[in-house]
């Protein structure tokens, strides 16, 4: 989990170095935390299924999956950056431009459609937008050597500004065959977006968790010096992580247009929930590191929480508070564990 807020130079702090010789207590506590978070997830599902009407219906579960698609894909993009950038929140990997990226890509998609182009051109334009934002991030972080937190913050502002210029802060409606297909229901009456999320997660998980390239990303993030010594192209790998994240932003933009029948304002509000989801994802992994499946689980966890609260007719105002509380618990638990290991 990338939560050690440590301002000391990296030389004095070798993140993850301890996991080669973990103490037994730390290991136990880690597995307890992992099991605990999964248990908490299951317990919450259980409580909701008993108390909230319709919670366990196929339609409702499909709804939650579909509603989680956009934030889930953004969070998975961020997870890739977290993996490659390392586990320090301040100096490690982060991509704050993701939500703005989604907003601009959505605006580009909707504008392209408004200009009379078809779906293929619009999808290409949105993905190229996301790709370019990823390239700028990569250039700022790897090329110019700016800390990702600041580099992507700056890019976020540029991108949000471009979106304002393009849309004049108005809603741009869009309706195409692809958008209609994405916003309709697929087999079993489950939203198409739910299937998109599952397929996307499977592909991303296959690449990140089960290919040599994915393993190298972890190596670069956890032991940059060792990775460099082993002859890995560290800079290229980190750059590619930012580009992958940018592409996720572009893809999420397309989905957002389908969900909202156009491009709308306020995409920036997605940022914090996405960051929170990606960070929370670590507690759903075996070694308490960012993983694609862990991020999917944490996205669904947050999604079910919001959904269950609505079904129980509890004010949505409480949801963000509960979310914050959960994050705080998770962050403190993992921080304490890391300290114990050290």
């Amino acid at each position, binding site marked *: 989990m990338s939560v050690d807020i440590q301002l000391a130079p990296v030389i004095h702090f070798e993140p993850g170095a301890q996991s080669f010789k973990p103490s037994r207590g730390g290991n136990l506590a880690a597995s307890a935390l992992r099991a605990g978070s999964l248990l908490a997830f299951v317990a919450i599902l259980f409580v909701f299924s008993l108390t909230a009407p319709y919670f366990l219906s196929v339609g409702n579960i499909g709804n939650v999956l579909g509603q989680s698609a956009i934030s889930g894909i953004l969070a998975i993009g961020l997870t890739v950056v977290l993996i490659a950038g390392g586990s320090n929140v301040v100096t490690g990997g982060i991509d704050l431009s993701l939500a703005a990226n989604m907003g601009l890509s959505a605006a580009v998609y909707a504008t392209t459609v408004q200009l009379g182009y078809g779906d293929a051109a619009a999808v290409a334009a949105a993905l190229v937008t996301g790709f370019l934002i990823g390239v700028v991030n990569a250039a700022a972080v790897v090329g110019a050597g700016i800390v990702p937190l600041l580099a992507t913050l700056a890019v976020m502002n540029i991108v949000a500004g471009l979106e304002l210029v393009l849309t004049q*802060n*108005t809603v741009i*409606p869009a309706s195409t065959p692809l958008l209609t297909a994405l916003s309709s229901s697929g087999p079993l009456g489950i939203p198409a977006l739910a299937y998109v999320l599952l397929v996307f997660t499977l592909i991303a998980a296959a690449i990140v968790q089960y290919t040599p390239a994915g393993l190298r990303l972890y190596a670069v993030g956890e032991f940059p010096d060792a990775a460099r010594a082993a002859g890995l192209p560290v800079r290229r790998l980190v750059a590619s992580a930012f580009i992958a994240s940018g592409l996720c932003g572009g893809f999420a933009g397309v989905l957002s247009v389908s969900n909202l029948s156009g491009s709308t304002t306020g995409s920036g*509000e997605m940022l914090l929930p996405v960051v929170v989801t990606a960070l929370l994802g670590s507690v759903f992994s075996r070694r308490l590191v960012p993983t694609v499946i862990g991020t999917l689980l944490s996205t669904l966890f947050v999604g079910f929480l919001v959904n269950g609260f*609505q079904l129980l*007719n509890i004010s949505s105002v409480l949801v963000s508070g509960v979310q914050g509380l959960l994050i705080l618990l998770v962050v403190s638990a993992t921080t304490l564990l890391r300290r114990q290991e050290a």
Partner: protein
Amino acid sequence: MTQEKPAQGVGRRDLLKLSAVAGAAIAGASLIGNRTAAAAEELSLKGKRIAISATGTDHFFDLQAYNAQIEEVKRLGGEPIAVDAGRNDGKLVSQLQTLIAQKPDAIVQILGTLSVIDPWLKKARDAGIPVLTVDVGSTHSINNTTSDNWGIGKDLALQLVSDIGGEGNIVVFNGFYGVTPCAIRYDQLVNVVKYFPKVKILEPELRDVIPNTVQDAFTQITALLNKYPEKGLIKAIWSAWDIPQLGATQAVAAAGRNEIRTYGVDGSPEVLQLVADPNSPAGADVAQQPAEIGRTAIQNVAKLLAGQTLPRETYVHALIANKANVNEVTKKLGIG
């Protein structure tokens, strides 16, 4: 049978006379008031789950309509399922999706960008859930309760044109043309201005934003006043609602350009206070009656579920508050 009829007729007439006497005897209450109260009492939502979906409640209008709806559902014996999207379209769509899965007896949607909510209102109708709206003219809504926005737009435009003596430049905030009531009010302004050739809408039009509406309007107007430093170049500032008007009024006052008048819609208490202040640049604010609109929408739901046919639109009267009559209006709204 035929013999009974006259007797019945007499009885009914007597009853009518009695009720008329009783009605007149109640001090301070008009007959019309009694009649609507009696009609409302017959309505019931007992055992019904009524979904109330608000785009946001950060603005006086939404909050009043939203709270009044929740109260009215409870008063009529129903169970409200109230969700507030906090002006986030993604959240609004998710909440509507979940509401459709919850299968309430009716959904009432308060405001919202039409292109965003329309597909989901259609899905609700397809799922057999009646959809009613407040201030959104969707084709998928059975009934839309709203102020008469044509009247509002016309009243405000005529007040503005008359205040500036039928000539001069006006600055316009037009950031929410996608929101139906705002579009109607704007179109009415354009319609009125068309017949006053000496009145010009300054280009480019300004875009009001959400959130930070007040601060943003303040910044934009301050910049514009610097661009047009000469007094008299700008006569008035118009916005389709009164939160940009609030920021604009503050900016005009701060720049000492009190010759400029500001105009807006909604009757937010803080703006009405400014209109009431003789030294403030706030010229007029058309006050809607949001709580009354909210209650009316819920009463429409009850009527619909009782099998009555609803009109396409139900209009609730709006009151224009200008420097001369603002105190009467605030008294009428009960926020004075």
